[in-house]
């Protein structure tokens, strides 16, 4: 047991120096060097200029839109993802394998295709857009459209993190709950839900992180108007189009910080949830 964890390198297998060296070199060139350029460039801006850029009303509006729609989309995915994951793991019905396979489609689909597809369906002339328009619901070119796009691209995360957690649930604990007089609803709420909550939060966090950075699908369904429907990624691109590389860098770094902070909070909550669950065991 000890030898596996503590051995510095088993002489029996070759290639350690070569493979680790290549890994570190490639990682440094492709990932670390460019990312450090981002941080150094932002550091070179000077605090005043940085702060002025990232607190400009147009920029603040873009954060609000980005994080607001991302949170909404991740929440929708958490709710429906839970239903879908439960259905896939626990229920047997014709077409289950197809449904299961389709969940990954947003991973495989270019985001531009997702965007153009949603625009086609939910624009005022689209199949569903013309149904919704008379009801006063405008989807495309509004924050609702952005939310819809972010829901689509975040769909697999919640389902795929929940599936193993639900599969790991022991039927015995549910039977034990039932034998102790719990109703099915009480079992769901007090036994099942707490034990899959950490996985649900992980999926939520992944969907959220993906949504915050999303660009390709959103620009097709948004009118991209400053202060109204302009997401942060788009703002970075327009700064670059105006050759304002410094401004783009400042917004990018600010976004990294905010999403990092949000993930930290979610991770903390998740740890809390899983600890409570472990204590309950």
């Amino acid at each position, binding site marked *: 047991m000890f*030898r596996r*964890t503590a051995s510095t390198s088993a*002489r*029996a297998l070759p290639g350690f120096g070569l493979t680790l060296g290549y890994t570190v070199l490639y990682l440094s060139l492709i990932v670390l060097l460019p990312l450090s350029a981002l941080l150094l460039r932002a550091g070179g801006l000077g605090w005043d200029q940085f702060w002025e850029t990232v607190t400009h009303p147009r920029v603040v509006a873009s954060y609000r839109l980005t994080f607001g729609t991302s949170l909404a989309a991740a929440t929708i995915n958490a709710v429906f993802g839970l239903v879908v994951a439960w259905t896939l793991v626990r229920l047997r019905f014709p077409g289950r394998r197809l449904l299961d396979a389709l969940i990954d489609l947003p991973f495989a689909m270019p985001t531009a295709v997702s965007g153009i597809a949603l625009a086609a369906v939910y624009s005022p002339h689209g199949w569903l857009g013309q149904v919704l328009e008379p009801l006063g619901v405008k989807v495309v070119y509004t924050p609702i459209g952005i939310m819809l796009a972010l829901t689509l691209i975040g769909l697999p995360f919640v389902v795929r993190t929940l599936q193993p957690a639900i599969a790991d649930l022991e039927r015995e604990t549910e039977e034990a709950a039932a034998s102790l007089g719990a109703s099915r609803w009480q079992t769901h709420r007090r036994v099942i839900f707490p034990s899959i909550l950490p996985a649900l939060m992980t999926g939520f966090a992944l969907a959220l992180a993906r949504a915050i950075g999303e660009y390709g699908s959103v620009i097709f369904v948004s009118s991209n108007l400053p202060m109204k429907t302009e997401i942060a990624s788009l703002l970075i691109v327009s700064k670059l189009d105006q050759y304002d590389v410094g401004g783009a860098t400042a917004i990018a770094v600010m976004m990294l910080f905010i999403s990092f902070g949000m993930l930290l909070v979610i991770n903390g909550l998740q740890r809390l949830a899983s600890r409570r669950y472990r204590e309950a065991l």
Partner: protein
Amino acid sequence: MGIEVEHVSKTFGSFKALDDVSLKIRDGELVALLGPSGSGKTTLLRIIAGLETADAHPAAVVRFHDEDVYKRSAAQRRVGFVFQHYALFRHMTVFENVAFGLRVRHRSTRPSNGDIRQRVERLLSLVQLSQFARRYPSQLSGGQRQRVALARALAVEPRVLLLDEPFGALDAKVRQGLRAWLRRLHEEIHITSVLVTHDQEEALEVADRVVVMNNARIEQVGTPEEVFHHAKTEFVMEFLGQVNVFRGRVRNGKAVLGELTVDYPQYRDDAERPATAYLRPHELRIERQRNGKPSFAARVTRTHSAGSLARVSLETPSGAPVLVDVSLEEFAALGLREGETVYLYPKNARIFVPDGASGAMNGDYVI
């Protein structure tokens, strides 16, 4: 010498797995490395195989048949290694698994396909698996898989055969059968072999000699009879077989062990010393009466006779548990009842007195 190991140490981080170990194994011998987990036996085996490198030490040596192999990699040492969890190549058939070591040889020394086929078939019949050649490892039972692993190791005509807990993952019945089979196989091919095990029965039954290890060191090396009946250290005494332990003192040629006092002529000093006595369950006799010889009283707490011997559990007045084995005939004659008090006469005891100077133990028999 088949295998010689000298001054080998191994540290993992802050954990000392081997502490300056030296060992000689004769040509054609089957030696068992026996010890609890963490005693260093597997590490020693892996160092012999070249799968692990020992800590750097100027005098460290590993020799096979008088040839220094210390600096060679595992691939160059020509050892046969049998892994606890088989480590069969899961994507190859049984045949291809056994043939692997021959197929990866350099073109100049690689046997022809026909020779490989012949040799693999011979080995498969040796391990009695000829009809399974086309199966995959996942289609075999645990015992069959381990036999494939053994055939695979033997295919390269290794200079030494190393087995790491080869039967550890199998159930008791299969293990029993494979043990006897391994012994017969060894008598047939007589290859210098080292077997690592934590199962004392396995070591005592299969090996020519047993190396008992504890805490990164070798405690004792000897034939199964030697280590079992003439344990040199308290650890070996306690590790091998069931044993009753009594703590007491020695002084003036007497050992006082609780209620029992026996002669101990080896120590005639006036100064009192602590001592520990070990008595195997068959080294105590049960009597209903006292007869003047050294004995002590104990109450029968439980008996069971579902075996080749009857085992009696007793308790001394001070509450210490004692185990005694008696033959079934004797057990029937005694007609013991639970709760009754009897007298126990030691036939044989080993008394260890720590040596004041070195702290080492001297084991001596008294009657």
